[in-house]
């Protein structure tokens, strides 16, 4: 994973230099790497990750500067790959693939959201509001970066696991959420945060979440369930 880590860091440096990083949020499988540093390198946080790097553009996008992000990725050796079926784009490289995502609104549009100021398009996905609403700004190797609140990341992972078609992806989501979630519950501030986020969720989401957590983490289930009483 050495090459991937170096490339990941190079991307962060470039996006930070161009003042893009302050307007977007790192989400997905690379977040635990940032959390590991945030919490002081505990062994409980797994470093398992894939070649997919996901970046969230808030909806509505609050971009303060016009930057051609697609050009930045070209300069970093990425090629733009556009799906002929639906127009979704991603930036591919032998070691990493970068996708821009944004919370899906309304009925869903089935086509990408154009982010004019960044010269890219982003794919709309459900449940990303949860992540967009709870973020922290932290430092990763000296770079200031936005990531989801760790507890929001955990709850979101549980929620989306149910939508996964591939069983191993479902298992991976659940395992990541369980490991990190149980670690967080040992810290009072994180417990309070998880509670706050959970209580603000729509009732339907809460119900779905409890159903998923019940069969996967007794510790998190007992904690969330106790708040209902």
């Amino acid at each position: 994973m050495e090459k991937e880590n170096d490339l990941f860091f190079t991307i962060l440096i470039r996006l930070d230099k161009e003042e893009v990083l302050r307007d977007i949020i790192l989400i997905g499988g690379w977040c635990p790497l940032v959390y590991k540093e945030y919490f002081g390198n505990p062994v409980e946080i797994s470093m398992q990750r894939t070649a997919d790097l996901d970046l969230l553009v808030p909806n509505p996008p609050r971009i303060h500067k016009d930057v051609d992000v697609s050009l930045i990725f070209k300069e970093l050796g990425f090629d733009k790959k556009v799906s002929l079926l639906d127009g979704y784009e991603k930036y591919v490289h032998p070691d990493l693939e970068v996708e821009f995502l944004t919370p899906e609104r309304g009925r869903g549009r089935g086509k990408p959201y154009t982010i004019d100021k960044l010269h890219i398009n982003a794919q709309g996905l459900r449940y990303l509001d949860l992540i967009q609403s709870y973020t922290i700004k932290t430092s990763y190797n000296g770079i200031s970066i936005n990531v989801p609140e760790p507890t929001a990341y955990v709850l979101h992972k549980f929620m989306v696991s149910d939508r996964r078609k591939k069983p191993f992806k479902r298992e991976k989501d659940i395992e990541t959420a369980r490991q990190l979630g149980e670690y967080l519950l040992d810290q009072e501030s994180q417990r309070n945060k998880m509670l706050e986020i959970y209580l603000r969720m729509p009732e339907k989401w809460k119900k779905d979440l409890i159903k998923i957590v019940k069969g996967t983490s007794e510790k998190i289930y007992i904690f969330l369930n106790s708040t209902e009483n």
Partner: protein
Amino acid sequence: MSIIKGILKEELKRLEELSAFYKEKILEVPCGSISVKERGGKRYIYLAHREDKKVIFDYVGKDIPEVRDALNERMQQRKEYQAKLRQVKENLEEIKRSLRGKRK
């Protein structure tokens, strides 16, 4: 399927798709090397490539800086795609080795 094995298989699929993507890109870019010939006091650009034992010269246009620069850029692009394809193939081998190792 274990999570690790699932990740490796997913990466294998990604790299196979990426390999096809770069192969397509390479085909979109002209192959060969730039050759300039003088005819009647004027210079013309050709693209030279080998087919079996014969060297074929494909006419490109008059030797003017714009044409030459555009061609050089495309040739450079081809080299970059070829380098990326080599990298993908190396990564593919690494993944296949890991998957074979897991089966033991």
